[in-house]
């Protein structure tokens, strides 16, 4: 995948957002007239504990360029542990992506509280720039493996996983 094809790429990103926090933050961002990339399609979930690995895999299989799960701050889950479970699930999905041949950075978990509209904007911007850097999902473009042993020798800036994706 050459850099030229990445340059004009407008990514499609799926966000599984908890209705008690991140979905409300996205709503608040709208009310506050905060601008953020239109790349994100939000799927409201009753708790990030509902977001399952298979939902993330299916989104990528159908061609999403990146998927993220956004839940309540640690300790603030309406259902006690849903956000912790979702956060624990995401590294497993990253390992699956590496095996499949997709870059693990295409998936991430974030904490965004209902009041953190600005943080929501930053998260969407972060995932959008990440998706742009990685280029279109090769499953959509008919490309080959972009990561792991199946991708051959690897290399290139996009091959190294992000330092740390999830933040407060």
């Amino acid at each position, binding site marked *: 995948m050459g850099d030229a094809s990445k340059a004009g790429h407008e990514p499609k990103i799926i966000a599984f957002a908890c209705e008690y926090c991140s979905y409300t933050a996205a709503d608040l961002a709208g009310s506050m007239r905060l601008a953020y990339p239109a790349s994100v399609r939000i799927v409201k979930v009753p708790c990030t504990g509902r977001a*399952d690995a298979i939902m993330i895999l299916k989104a*990528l299989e159908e061609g999403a360029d990146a998927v993220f799960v956004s839940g309540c701050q640690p300790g603030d889950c309406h259902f006690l542990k849903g956000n912790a479970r979702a956060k624990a699930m995401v590294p497993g999905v990253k390992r*699956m992506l590496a095996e499949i041949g997709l870059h693990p950075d295409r998936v991430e978990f974030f904490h965004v509280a209902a009041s953190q509209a600005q943080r929501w904007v930053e998260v969407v911007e972060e995932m959008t720039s990440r998706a742009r850097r990685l280029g279109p999902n090769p499953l959509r473009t008919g490309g080959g493996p972009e990561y792991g042993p199946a991708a051959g020798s690897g290399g290139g800036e996009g091959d190294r996983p992000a330092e740390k994706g999830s933040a407060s």
Partner: protein
Amino acid sequence: MIVGERKPLEEIIDSLEGARKVLVAGCGTCVAVCMAGGEKEVGMLAAELSMAARLRGLEIDVTQATAQRQCDREYLETLREQVKGRDAVVSMACGIGVQYMALHYEPLRVVPGINTDFMGANLGIGEWVEYCQSCGDCLLAETGGICPIARCSKSLLNGPCGGSSGGKCEISKDTDCAWQLIYDRMAKLGRTDRLARYRPPKVWKTSRDGGPRRLVREDQKA
């Protein structure tokens, strides 16, 4: 339950070499409960296989189905329609299910999707520990309900070895000394005197040492 874990995707893809139509078949009993080969895991492997194949330029049509059990003929039979026309099946059951499916649908190519690890208990979310090795001659009545064969690293039958320290086994600080557990349990039960009883050497002929085992219940065969 029988505890297993998913095989690496690359190994599964390699075992499917040449197959164009693949069924991923789950088992709804033990391996579903230990989250290795149930309906949900079947969905995940099918999605993974499908994506990996597309990226590698392989044309593989992946379908999925789950039987209640793969170790019973009646339940295996429920997959007949889904198996039809498939070049290969990835069975996500334990090794028993894989073999029984291969026999039931002979000459169908059946490959395993999981590694069968052990028979164990679910101690907490995402944690299983081996509790039984099916020796065929249960002695739990004499050991306070703690199996020294499965849970002592050396399968000792007459007390701890010199590697027992602070209640832990010398192989790992995370492994309890089974004989410490047995003594503590028997003490709680007020039955430590039973431990001092003479017990003749265990007869292992009921265990794997006698070759593949078979159980025939004449009273159930009619």
